[in-house]
């Protein structure tokens, strides 16, 4: 075992934390918060250590564990770090303590249950990223739904029942299809190879006929596209965000949405490469529609949370575009954009929560001139706005730039070969950088500038706890924006393997140039 202990520790620490918090005496809210926070911090340390020791030059899994679980079905407890999940695991661990700290003074109802749920979802999210067994992946994937359902349903806003139902129905619908597809996949592999396994390494070697691939990928893709979310499966997201408490929104935007894009990257495309190639035009088109459509809808919202929710749809469109480009730079950009969006949107939702705690309003029209009233708040809000717009030196730029560059690298050869669709889509995607500036600057201008007004004024500026949370996020945003080479070195090999697997030899030669 040795090294794998650390990774198991990282995964099971939140589960242990759940038990510990459950056992705490009633009414000790501060203790509950403290224990949860301590657990998250410890987890962050372990994740940092693992990140540090993760070797980007070695292919395959690191710190892996592989023990049988349900022998008859070939299910195993298989987890491990690889280039595809290392950054997302780090992101999840990084946001953990910030989420708990952000909810410190916001949650007063059922504090214990709330924190158990936060730890639960942390556990499930890490499990989903780390799982290297399809069954295990599915278990964690479904498990995420329960705490999220409860967090929105119990601590949410007025229309929370509607929002949770929409959220659950959408995601569950996708999950069921995925379940059917993965059972079929395992059974098929069983039929052709003679033994049954859910081990991803074996499954990804199976040769399926294109037609079957197409059906299976469609099922997986639907499930993932709902999570991302991609147009036209996105309408659950704004409602969920608006009704969710801050914690829910941060987890949702910070990590949960990446499950969809991660699913495409880890399972959907590599398991069914021929089908993926065949479906790429559709996926690219939907990605670009999501970019523009999300941005346009963000433009006409009046609720701050909805603006950020729709902006998420737009920003994750870049991730899908980068992945679908099957160009190394594009794939790397997609990975970086996932992390960046987690930080930026997570940070923005935290900030909306901070102001909401003070004023109990999320309506853009209620605010003005916060730069005068809350100078510290405004500095951070401006920085996050700029990162969301994708200003160079922030992580938002690095991700968007590379995703777009990748899309173009793939589009020009296609254009020269007579296929204009990728180029057209890539050009439209660039218009997203203008639209992104339009709605975010409109938001910033309306709430930060002009005549000072806000409900319940005068307001107090950010306290030390809130400032510390935002300093951490902003530092990460600039670190990635200025030195993206460091995290990308850890993912390059995996991105190459992904590219090789999905693109096959023909495209790969042209696109690594």
């Amino acid at each position, binding site marked *: 075992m040795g090294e794998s202990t650390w990774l198991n520790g990282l995964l099971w620490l939140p589960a242990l934390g759940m038990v510990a918090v459950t056992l705490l005496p009633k009414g000790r809210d501060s203790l509950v918060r403290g224990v949860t926070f301590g657990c998250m911090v410890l987890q962050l340390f372990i994740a940092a250590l693992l990140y540090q020791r993760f070797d980007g030059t070695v292919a395959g899994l690191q710190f892996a564990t592989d023990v049988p679980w349900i022998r008859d079905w070939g299910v195993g407890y298989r987890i491990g770090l690889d280039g595809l999940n290392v950054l997302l695991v780090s992101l999840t661990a990084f946001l953990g303590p910030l989420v708990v700290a952000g909810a410190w003074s916001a949650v007063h109802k059922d504090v214990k249950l709330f924190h158990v749920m936060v730890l639960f979802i942390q556990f499930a999210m890490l499990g989903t990223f780390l799982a290297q067994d399809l069954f295990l992946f599915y278990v964690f994937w479904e498990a995420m739904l329960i705490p999220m359902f409860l967090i929105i349903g119990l601590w949410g806003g007025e229309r929370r029942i509607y929002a949770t139902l929409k959220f659950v129905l959408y995601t569950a619908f996708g999950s*069921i299809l995925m379940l059917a597809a993965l059972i079929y996949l395992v059974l098929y592999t069983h039929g052709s190879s003679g033994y049954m396994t859910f081990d991803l390494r074996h499954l990804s070697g199976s040769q399926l006929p294109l037609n079957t691939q197409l059906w299976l990928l469609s099922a997986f893709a639907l499930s993932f596209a709902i999570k991302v979310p991609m147009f036209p499966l996105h309408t659950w997201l704004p409602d969920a965000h608006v009704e969710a408490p801050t914690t829910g929104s941060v987890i949702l935007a910070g990590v949960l949405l990446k499950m969809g894009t991660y699913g495409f990257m880890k399972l959907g495309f590599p398991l069914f490469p021929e089908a993926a190639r065949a479906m790429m035009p559709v996926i690219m088109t939907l990605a670009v529609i999501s970019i523009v459509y999300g941005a346009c*809808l963000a433009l006409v919202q009046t609720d701050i949370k909805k603006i950020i929710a729709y902006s998420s749809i737009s920003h994750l469109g870049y991730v899908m575009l980068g992945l679908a480009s099957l160009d190394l*730079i594009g794939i790397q950009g997609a990975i970086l954009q996932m992390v960046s969006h987690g930080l930026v949107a997570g940070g923005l939702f935290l900030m909306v929560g901070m102001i909401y705690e003070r004023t109990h309003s999320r309506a853009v029209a209620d605010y003005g001139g916060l730069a005068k009233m809350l100078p510290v708040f405004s500095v951070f809000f401006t920085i996050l706005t700029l990162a969301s717009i994708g200003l160079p030196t922030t992580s938002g730029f690095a991700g968007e730039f590379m995703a777009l560059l990748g899309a173009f690298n793939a589009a020009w050869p296609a254009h020269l070969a007579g296929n204009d669709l990728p180029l057209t889509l890539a050009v439209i995607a660039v218009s997203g950088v203008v639209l992104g500036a339009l709605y975010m600057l409109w938001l910033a201008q309306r709430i930060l500038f002009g005549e000072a007004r806000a409900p319940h004024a005068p307001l107090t500026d950010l306290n030390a706890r809130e400032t510390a949370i935002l300093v951490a996020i902003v530092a990460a945003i600039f670190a990635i924006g200025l030195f993206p080479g460091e995290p990308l070195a850890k993912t390059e090999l995996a991105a190459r393997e992904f590219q090789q697997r999905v693109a096959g030899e023909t495209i790969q030669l042209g696109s690594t140039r």
Partner: protein
Amino acid sequence: MSRATIACKDDAHPMNLLTVIVLLPLAGFLLNGLLGRRLGRTFVSVVGCGLPVLAFLATFKAVLLLQAAGPDAALLEVAYRWASFGDRGFDVAFYFDRLTAVMTLIITGVGSLIHVYSTGYMKDDPGYARYFAYLNLFLFFMLTLVLGRSLLVCFVGWEGVGLASYLLIGFWFEDPAKAAAGKKAFITNRVGDAGFLLGLFLLYWALGTVNMDEINAAFAAPIAPAVSASLVGVLLFIGATGKSAQIPLHVWLPDAMAGPTPVSALIHAATMVTAGIYLVARLHGIYEHAPAASQVVAVIGVLTAFFAATIALVQTDIKKVLAYSTVSQLGLMFLALGVGAYGVAVFHVYTHAFFKACLFLGAGSVIHALGGEQDIRKMGGLWRKIPVTFFTFAVATAAIAGIPPLAGFFSKDEILWFAFASEHGGSPILWALGSATALMTSFYMFRLLWLTFLTPSRMSHETEHHVHESPLSMTGVLIVLAVLSAIGGFFELPHFLEPLLPIPAVVESLEHFEHTLVFVAVAVALLGLAAATFMYRRGLARGEALAARFPRLHRVLGGKYYIDELFEAVLYRPLHWVSDRVFLGLGDRLLIDGSLHGLAVLTRRASGRLSRVQTGQLQWYVAMAVIGVVGCLVWVWRHG
């Protein structure tokens, strides 16, 4: 053309000189931004002005190194690798040749002067520390823009100066109009930036590099790159039209005058808005091989020059006159670029930096003296009260009008000559439009001078009583800039840049026109002066009478050809309408959610539980789930 590139970081020069030049203002930003409010005004002033001055001195050192290395040499410094992809990657590297040297000297030199001026102008502003922090931040990004070796680093600076400009235009953000002007500038620039990015992507795909020296070399190579130089050229020029306020993206610059006046001088006259000219000149290798793109540059440039000048004729806000004048002068620079006279364009950047900074700062001094008044109809007779401001303003006015032997005369004369005779797309039409622009420039600038300083006073008694000359920190800077505006033209910059930026050949049959055209240029400048004197010597009356005779024309010019209104009507409002009605109303609410709700209602009816909403839907979910799984499995099993 192969060039000697010497690494700046070697044993003899262990310092990262170029990196230091870039980072000095950044340090100023961080110090003043984080500590400025606590440590007081003296600290802010010393840091805010001191670091740009240090950057200026460091630039001098770099220039000395460069001169020692030869006329076509360049210093190169790789700071670090930003990201790598296999054996390729993007470096953060700085590149310093004569073109960079000129730009960097202007930026740090004029920049330092304007910082010093600002200590007087912004003395009583509560946001003093924030102001200097932003100004330093601007210098940092502007230096990144011109020193960056690759288009990517250039783009970092490119967007960064846009940010600094946004922050400084909206510096007095309590006023919604000022904040809106900042937003408009940012978004208009973003439109251009999209073009810049497209050009960058295309170059990277075709060449595998975005290092600008390598791009030039690739286009000069015997085997042309597999990409249309014209397409790349036009895409990058779209970026340039945004930053340098050319038609149709010029609309942000006049609004940008909402910022403090020294900001208008530094960012919106002397440096940032010339970034587009720098970009085209830097990538001259592309444009030399792209006659079509060059023609686009020349035509857009000359049209912008002409139309902006017509608008400037009727403006009554002192800063707006100067703003349209800047748009117009930038147009002339693009005209030079379009006819292949890259060095001449940079020459005009250089002289323009002096006289336009002097004019804006002079305007600032006037506004300062009048307690905020910017309407020239309410001025007059100021020369006696603020003589230093008047004198320096007059010198700069003569310089921009093209009165010999002041700086503007030389650079403008060369632009018009090449517009006429260059083999690279020169034509009499371009020359005629350029000369008409020069005539109008002379006219509206002397109109400004008359109405502000020389005509009998139209100020209220109250205002007149308070008029006072600005402090030495401001007038001193004005004097320095006025001297530079006067003598700057004697430095033959195009010749200095010739090893890098070729001077275009002129059509042989036109060579003998050169002297004639010089006389015409001088005559044009003097004609403008004479006309303005005739019209405005006594005050507003004659001008107003003329406006009354052509009311419609006057209204169109005053309304700036209604370009803003046009954009509002054909772009902004339709975008909102489509987003709101079609995407949100029809797409999200009606089609997507509507069908979902419809499905839910149907299920509820079918299950016969009309009373319990949630239960009905959950049951539907469970039922659907089971049916779905079974159905899919069966289907796939049989068809797979």
